[in-house]
């Protein structure tokens, strides 16, 4: 019987205690903000949209290899010895044309693993976090500044160079072979003449 009245009392009292707390909160200022109008200032280390400063990129492919979800695709073409690609801002010499540098930001998991291995600090995460698109394909960012025809040209250049080199190599090899053959023939001749 005693428990009965204790229950009644506790029921009413704890409800009143709770009501006092919520009533108090009725007059405390809200902690939420009006998001698109007001924005929280982001800390400096914030990790959001990836950005690549392609001018500094040397096309070393380290970021792509570090990525756990394979969202970075890089294609490079070797430059011709005659072409000067300049240097990066921290003084590294560039030797590759970056014909393709695509980041599929829809796949990106914002782990920042690609940022650390970069030797020229050209890939980094920015504080932009509003980049929704209507089309999924718009989420694939192309960072390469080369136009398709330009990159085709570079490829063709390199291919030509490669072919030339190969031809040279082939010619050299041929020449060497011929020379070898000649030499061998001469030796043979000498040998045969000796034996005679």
């Amino acid at each position: 019987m005693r428990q009965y009245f204790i229950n009644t009392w506790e029921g009413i009292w704890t409800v009143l205690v709770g009501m006092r707390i919520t009533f108090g909160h009725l007059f405390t200022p809200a902690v939420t903000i009006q998001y698109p109008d007001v924005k929280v200032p982001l800390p400096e280390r914030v990790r959001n949209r990836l950005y690549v400063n392609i001018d500094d990129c040397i096309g070393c492919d380290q970021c792509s290899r570090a990525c756990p979800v394979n969202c970075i695709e890089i294609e490079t073409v070797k430059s011709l010895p005659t072409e000067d690609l300049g240097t990066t801002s921290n003084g590294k010499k560039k030797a590759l044309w970056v014909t393709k540098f695509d980041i599929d930001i829809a796949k990106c998991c914002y782990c920042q693993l690609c940022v650390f291995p970069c030797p020229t600090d050209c890939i980094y995460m920015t504080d932009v976090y509003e980049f929704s698109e209507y089309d999924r394909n718009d989420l694939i960012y192309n960072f390469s500044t080369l136009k398709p025809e330009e990159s085709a040209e570079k490829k063709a250049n390199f291919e030509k160079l490669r072919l030339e080199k190969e031809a040279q190599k082939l010619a050299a090899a041929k020449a060497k072979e011929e020379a070898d053959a000649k030499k061998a023939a001469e030796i043979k001749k000498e040998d045969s003449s000796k034996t005679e």
Partner: protein
Amino acid sequence: MFDALSELFGSPIIAAFVSAIVPLVFIVPFVIIAVYMERKVAGHMQDRLGPMRVGYHGILQTVADFFKLLQKEDITASSIDKRFFNVAPFLVFAGSYAVYAALPFTSSMLGSKIDIGLFFIVAASGLVVAGILMAGWSSNNKYSLYGALRSAAQIVSYEIPTIIVILSVVMFTRTLSLAEMSEMQTAYFWNWNIFGGAEWNLTKLLITPFMMIAFLIFYISSLAEVNRTPFDMPEAESELVAGYHTEYSGIKFSMFFLAEYANMFAVSAIAVAIFLGGYQSPFGYVGNLIGAEWLVQVEQLFWFISKGMFFVFVQMWLRWTLPRVRVDQLMTICWKYLIPYSFVNLIIIGIITLI
């Protein structure tokens, strides 16, 4: 009001029609304001802002939502019982709407001056149970069925303490008419029933604490009757998804919604009418002071609505504070706590009234 209207229009039929419309004119804006208020109260109690976008501080949010609900596609599942499914929301609304017929908004503004007002209200609100049961059963959804059956058990059980408390007040005031009851609690707030009525004697002193208990019991059981937290079993969100109205959408859902909020005000208004002086002002009338008869009516309407709104606010306040009881505990509270207390209270009030 009916008499005045039939004189005005010269035909009792038109008068009946018009006086039936009047509460709707009140209910729809009330619901819009109450929903807005609910959201704002919830928001600020939870350190949020609540709706802020539509209009100044989101004041038009519920209007926008109302239109959205009207536009929505009325989805009906294929395996439901169509007849009951379609009727149920309107039946629920009719039940809560009927209550307004006997509510005295002011001394002259009330739908019907029936002598058994309280009795009518109790009977009419029973209609809601039928509507909810129909909705739950016809939805052909296990969650809806659970919600509906819980609700039926709950509302029927909680009628008992409600009626016992009403009985004790009726014993004290010797009338079943809400209009008459409100009239008796005239002038200042110490004349309200909760403070022992208008007569100054020993009875008043003795009866006051018991009247307060009666009010508390009435308020708690009325919460259960309108399915508000902590007794929102039928639609217990975390268990039954949305209870009996899981399958409803669009306009039919908004009928349930309308009924719920209409009910909230109705029970608060009944509590106000039988305990807290109804439409009577707590400090006398300015209209009487300056001799303007019409002003008194306006004041009465103001006091009635603001008292009612206060208790609607308390309902919201409770909702955003408390967890929900379990279905068997709900019954325990009713049968083991409220009913015994209200019986004892009834007997004590009876004895005091007899002295």
